[in-house]
Structure formats: C-alpha cells, structure tokens
C-alpha cells in the first residue's frame, strides 16, 4: 500500500514491458519494494545454494563448543549439541523457500482454475464454488494444516499439498473478481462476437489480463506459506527433526536452552521476519505498479 495519489503511468497490460524495463521502473518508483525484492532474491540464493554455503554439517555435533555465543568460527553461535546455528539457518532457508515457492505456485494454479470457472462461467457453478469458498474460509489456515498434517503425515510433499489447497481455494476469490471485470471488457465481447471458442477467449483474452493480479497473489502467498509452515513446525507438527526448520529451531527442546544461549532465539526468527517483510514490501510495490485497483486490500 502506498500513496493513493501516485501519478500512474498508463500501462497497457497487453504490451507488457520487458522484465528488465519493469525492474528498472520498480527501482525508480518503489525503492523500498525493489529493496525487498533484492532481499527476497538473496534468500532465494541462500536457499538454492545452501548445501555449498554451509560452513559445518547441519547435524554435525561438537560437544566441546556447545552453547557458544556468536564468534568468528560460528557466526550465529552454536546450540546445545554444539551444532552450528548458521548452517542450520541456511538449510532452514532452503526448506522454507522450497515450501513457500512450490506451495504458492500450486496454490496460484488452483486459484486460477477455480477463479476462472467461477468468474467466467458464473451462474450455478459460481454460486456453488463461492459458497464452498465461504465455508472453507471459516477455518483458520493453521488449524486446518495441523489437522490435515496429523492425518496424512508431516513430510514436505504433504505440507506443500495442504498449503497449496488452503491458499488456492481462498485465493480463487481474488482471481474471480478480476476475471469478472475482464469478462466485461470490450475486447472480450468483440472476441466472442467474432465467434472465438471459449478456450481461445480464456487463454488469449482473460488470462493475460488477470496476470497482474495473479503475480501479486503468488508473491503474497509465498510469504504466507512460509509463515504458516514455520508456525506448524513451531507447534511441533511440521517436518520432523533432525531436519532444521526455522519454526522448529524456536520450539521443542531448543527452548529450554534459550535461557542459557539467547542467540538461539534470534537467528531463525529474524530470518523469518526479514524474508516475510521483504516479500510483503515487494508484493505491495508490485501491486501498486501492476494493479492499482487492488491497492490497500490484502
């Protein structure tokens, strides 16, 4: 969200500017958003190359250096088993980023399918889907995830699946709204009058025009998925130990040692906050530039 009276440059979505040009515009008009994007990319890099970046083995214990504060050898200190916190945080980034990206990607696809079905075809289908979405949104994300995971097991694929379903269904409403407005556009009517097939209209006229909304939706979902997964791990229901997760590092047995080594409480939470903050400001900036109508909403 930002200044409501931003002088908006006319952007026709059909002639989408090249990625580079858009990035430059982002840097010029939304420096904070661009900064968030950069941090986001940085963490993505950490996640992708975590295996090469870690200075120590993730589960390599060394009892001689247990519960040591941050030092040159161990930048973020060590935990109660003498494991290097930095290494664990990096591998945690890998997991968080993977889950965030894949879950948000799948969720976006689900949202598009449901949103287009509901928004473009309308009528009874719309009615049915929307009442279902209403009912679905009565349940808190985290609670739903807890229960589903307790039934299907706490592996990465299961968590990704559950998260994408949760966010996919909820997000379909946003896609629907935008499909409805595009459906009434002149060019869509024109295409229909010329006898274009439904599939052709959907792919060539509807989809490109809802892309801005979809991109913003995807971005915010990455942050939400990362946060929810961390909450699940914090409650001890996420990916089981010894796999390090940001949420998991703040919970369980580690908690008792935080009173002796307060730095244990800092690194994972700080990383989470920074990543989610970066994604949020980036998403906000994208929204302002791509889709002025959505400004101020979430």
């Amino acid at each position: 969200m930002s200044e409501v009276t931003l002088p908006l440059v006319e952007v026709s979505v059909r002639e989408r500017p090249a990625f580079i040009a858009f990035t430059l515009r982002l840097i010029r008009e939304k420096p904070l958003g661009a900064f968030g994007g950069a941090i986001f990319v940085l963490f993505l890099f950490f996640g992708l190359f975590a295996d090469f970046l870690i200075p120590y083995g993730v589960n390599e214990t060394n009892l001689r250096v247990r519960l040591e504060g941050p030092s040159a050898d161990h930048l973020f200190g060590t935990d109660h088993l003498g494991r290097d916190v930095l290494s664990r945080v990096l591998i945690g980034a890998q997991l968080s980023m993977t889950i965030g990206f894949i879950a948000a990607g799948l969720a976006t696809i689900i949202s598009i399918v449901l949103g287009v079905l509901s928004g473009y075809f309308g009528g009874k289908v719309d009615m049915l889907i929307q009442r279902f979405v209403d009912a679905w949104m009565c349940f808190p994300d985290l609670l739903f995830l807890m229960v589903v995971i307790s039934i299907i097991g706490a592996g990465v694929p299961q968590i990704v699946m559950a998260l994408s379903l949760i966010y996919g269904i909820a997000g379909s409403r946003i896609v629907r709204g935008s499909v409805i407005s595009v459906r009434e556009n002149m060019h869509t009517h024109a295409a229909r009058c010329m006898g274009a097939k439904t599939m052709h209209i959907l792919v060539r006229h509807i989809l490109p025009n809802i892309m801005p909304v979809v991109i913003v939706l995807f971005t915010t979902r990455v942050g939400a998925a990362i946060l929810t997964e961390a909450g699940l791990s914090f409650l001890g229901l996420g990916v089981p130990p010894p796999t390090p997760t940001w949420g998991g590092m703040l919970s369980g047995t580690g908690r008792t040692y935080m009173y002796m080594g307060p730095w244990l409480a800092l690194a994972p939470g700080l990383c989470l906050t920074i990543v989610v903050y970066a994604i949020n400001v980036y998403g906000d900036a994208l929204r302002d530039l791509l889709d002025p109508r959505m400004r101020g909403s979430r």
Partner: protein
Amino acid sequence: MQAYIIRRLLALLPTLILVSLIVFFCQRLIPGDVIDLMLSQNDLATDQDRAVIEAALGFDQPMYIQYFSWIGDVVQGDLGDSLWQNTPVTQQLAETMPITFELGLLALIVALTVAIPIGIYSAVRQDTAGDYIARSFSLLMLAIPGFWLGTLVMVFPSVWWRWSPELEYVPFFEDPLQNLSLMIVPAILLGLSMSAVTMRMTRTMMLEVMRQDYVRTARAKGLSEVAVILRHALRNGLIPVVTLIGLQVPLLIGGAVIMERIFVVPGMGLLLLEAISQRDYPVVSGVFVVVGFGVLLINLAVDLSYGWLDPKVRHQ
C-alpha cells in the same frame, strides 16, 4: 431491517451445510492404518481394540448414514466422546472455549485501540514522517511471526531482568486481576499482529473518505477538523474496517493456538494440540465444529452490523 436479517440467515444455510461437510470429510480422511497407528502410539489404548475405535469414529457404516447421524447429533449439541478420556467433547469445549474467547476478545480490544487511532493519524498526516513510521510499523508487525515475538518475550526479560510472564492459569471468576495479568501479555502480542492489517485498512478508507464531497462540505461550513474527522469521515470510513474484523477472526484463532501454547493458557488451542498429538479425532472435529460455526456467526453479526451502520445495505 427484518427482511434483511431473514435474507442473511437464509443465505447462511448453504454455507452452514458446507462447513459441516468439510468437518465431516476431514474426519473421514483418516485412513484405516491411522487407527493402527493410534493404537500403537497411544499407551492409553491398550485395553481398546480396533472395532471399538472404528465404531466410535463411525467407520462401520455407509458414509451418508454416518454424515446424517453425525449432523443429527451435532444439531442436538452432542459432539461425541473423547476417545481416550471418557468425557463428552462438549464438556471439554465448554471448559476451554471461554478462555480462548477471552484471549481473542482482549486481543481484539488491543488491536482496535492501537490500529484505529494510528490509522486515522496516518491518513490525516499522509506522507509525513509519522505516516511513514506508522506504515513501516504495520508492515513489520505483519511480518513478525507471533510465535517468535512470544518466544522473545519469554526469553529476554528472563535473561536480562530475571522476569518472566506468569504461567499459572487462574480462572477469571476466581481472581479477575490475576487472570488478566496472565492473559494480557499473549493478548497484546496477538492484538499487535492483528492491528497491522486493520491499521492499513483504516488508513486507506480514511484517505478515500476524506476526499468525498460531504467532507469538503463539512469543512466548508466551518466545522473543526476534529469534528469533521470523528463525526463525518470516521463513521463512513469504518464500515469496511468492521468487515475486515470479521474476516480476521480465523487469523485470530490461529494465532491464539500459538499464544496458548507459548503461555500455557488452557484454552481451545491447547485442547486441539493435545487432541492432535493423541489423535483424538472426535475432540479435533469438535473444535472444528465450534470454530467453523463460530466464525460463521461472527461474520453474520458483522454483516448485520453492516446493515445497521449503512442504510444503503438494508434497502438493497
């Protein structure tokens, strides 16, 4: 207004049915081998056999019969018995729900007292340093996970000043002050994270409303700025904020689970966590019924208040 209320109630019906179906199918999702797992994991279960659990979960009947007998019980206020403790689920819920409700209510009060004044300030002083600080704060609050904030509150005061929040739960009617001093820390943490979105929404809506003609008229007729904002702008600006509060209730409940876990508040969240770790599915679906229907009811209340706040809505 009456017609509006009746219309809203009727529109609620299909959603209610779908909510019940979602809860039901979640319970049905439990594959058979989970029952074996339940038996092997739970040391309380030694004297129970598979058939007893299957019957308790109702797996021995066709699905539609299961649904109708389940929903029939739910309507009559019977949510079944806990698998491992021989107490009705409703009794456990009756003990824990008021606690979670209190936590949520306190958090909501905190959220609104923080969010609305700052949101108004931010809109009135748009693009000043104060506005930027308020907005950065709200973005930050959106990003900080509640469980991390809770952990920090537990760890650092204890390390630095040997102070830690009270963890011995006392019921409100036994000792209100003691109870509040215990609940206030989790409520503030929960409220702060909720205030972020509300603050953003208040600001956006106020900005929108402040540019309306009737606000200009109010100013032109010489009203003081305070009167313009409080009496003319705020009332209209707050309508969408009220809706937002309804939408945030699920978020609030999710956050409450985490706060209850950190601060050992014996509410519904803790009950749910315990039930999940013991795979006590009747309790789990009981919590879900209460949460699902509770959220629906709150949203209904929000919708009705919408009709009361905004005459246009009830005459549609």
